């Protein structure tokens, strides 16, 4: 394994330069979180050790400085994930408005438990903490999209659309 196997394409390289321009020259470590988001979006939705080493080489920092950050923040996936990671809020207001029913419905519909990808690698359910959508509960997030005021019918339609779209979701 070498870091040369992993490299941002030209478009992503341009984004890297834009991100680095946001900080004073000697403070480029500040670019770490934005670069990890970009890397996760560019390299199959997760951060492999090779990807993290690559980011360390761009910022000229120790690999451990990347690992300790990637493991701290909940949005970074350290294992491969399905195309569509369905992040279901389960805190207070969402719980009150039926988040647990949403989890159970999805588990049954997709025939997987929370955390497992479906066999075709299309969907994966993750329970998360408050996403700031309390007034439109229950909800889940897929990539940068918020799906709110969920009902079972709505979920059926959302999954159907995504199955047709069949593209890896991303935040960036």
């Amino acid at each position: 394994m070498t870091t040369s196997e992993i490299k941002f394409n030209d478009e992503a390289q341009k984004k890297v330069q834009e991100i680095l321009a946001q900080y004073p020259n000697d403070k480029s470590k500040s670019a770490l979180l934005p670069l990890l988001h970009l890397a996760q979006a560019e390299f199959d939705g997760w951060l492999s050790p090779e990807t993290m080493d690559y980011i360390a080489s761009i910022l000229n920092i120790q690999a451990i400085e990347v690992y300790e950050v990637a493991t701290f923040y909940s949005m970074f996936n350290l294992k491969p994930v399905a195309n569509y990671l369905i992040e279901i809020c389960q805190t207070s207001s969402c719980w009150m408005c039926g988040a647990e029913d949403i989890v159970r419905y999805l588990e049954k519909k997709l025939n997987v438990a929370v955390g497992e990808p479906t066999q075709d690698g299309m969907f994966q359910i993750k329970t998360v903490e408050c996403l700031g959508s309390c007034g439109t509960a229950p909800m889940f997030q897929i990539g940068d999209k918020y799906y709110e005021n969920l009902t079972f019918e709505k979920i059926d339609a959302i999954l159907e659309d995504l199955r047709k779209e069949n593209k890896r979701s991303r935040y960036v």
Partner: protein
Amino acid sequence: MNEKLLLKYDHIPGINTLAVYRQHNGYTSLEKALKTLKPDEVVEEVKKSGLRGRGGAGFPTGMKWSFLAKPEGVPRYLVCNADESEPGTFKDRYLMERIPHLLVEGMIIASYALGANASYIYVRGEYYYIIKILQKAIKEAYAAGLLGKNILGSGFDLDLYVQPGGGAYICGEETALLESLEGKRGNPRIKPPFPAVAGLWGRPTVVNNVETIAAVVPIIQDGGDAYAKIGVGKSTGTKLISASGHINKPGVYEIELGVPVEEFIYSEQYCGGIRNGKKLKAVVAGGSSVPILPTELILKTAKGEPRLMTYESLSDGGFATGTMLGSGGFIVMDEDTSIVKNLFTFARFYRHESCGQCSPCREGTAWMEKIIKKFIDGKANMADIDLLWDVQSKIEGKTICPLGEAAAWPVAAAIRHFRHEFEAYVRNPQSINEVKHYYRLNNLVEA
């Protein structure tokens, strides 16, 4: 009383664009500040306004600004805290999504007041679509000469950037936010030194919440004195309230501080009463970390006076009978809600979000979650109530940052006001049915 200062134009189509925002007085406050006020005079107006931090702590903004150190030749920074993650709170998201230019304008005015030439808006990573909205607004502002060099010919330069978080509640704590902005784990720093002296990259920094910075725009527009006339006593101005839970009309409401809680819950103008004709059981008035209050104490103080939506009235009676305005995350629970089960979701949240630096918080939050789960599973005994009380009491005041308190207070308040519900779970593991939840029993209970 229906004075709107921030959400006056939120329903105007296209208000997220510079053109439409400008048609509705957009950037006139900035022009006024740059052309007629010196930076110190802007600070003075904010001081006069009585504006208090809208993120939750309620610290006077003008005073925070006046603490900023200004050593010669050292850059200083304004950082906007858009890491909104307190359960029950979604007002900043609403504001940034609907009227991004209001935040941008506030950032420019505040940066001018503080003498910052580079400023950052740190947005929680889950709000990535908001980041894109803000970046678009910032691009428009640059193109119109409202950002960059020599803004509106004033000689003032400012670069404004948006920084994503990575999914960590703790980064809403200002020193954890700065650590994160420096590309590190979000571990809160020991204070002092405060960010005003050593903040971002060790340089003087002010960190303010989204709503706080947005409020600077109407304050400059109409003057600090005019703003101070709105509201009640030391609770001046308006506040965005995120209303959720078992109400007919959940959403973000801008209220003049001083609206009675009862009016806020029941009037058609705001929450529109409890869903499905049910009765009110309890309210968490200011985000998950403030003490929950039962109906009788949220509607009236212990002295029998109507409780008002102000910093002072909500905290009247201390924690024995009161709570806090906090972030304005107003969570309403109907008569069928299990207080213990809701508390479990809070306990799980704080265990998940503890950064792990201080052992009372790292160990305590996990322990509290475990004990509360025992009640839900029907495996607790009466002594567990006292144990839970004991654990929470040993977190408060013993941690670097306030996450310790934030985790302990909801537990303490649930026991203080709803001890009988914990007891019911011990007496009868099926008491969850007695409380008539409208939701179905879940896996945790079946276990």
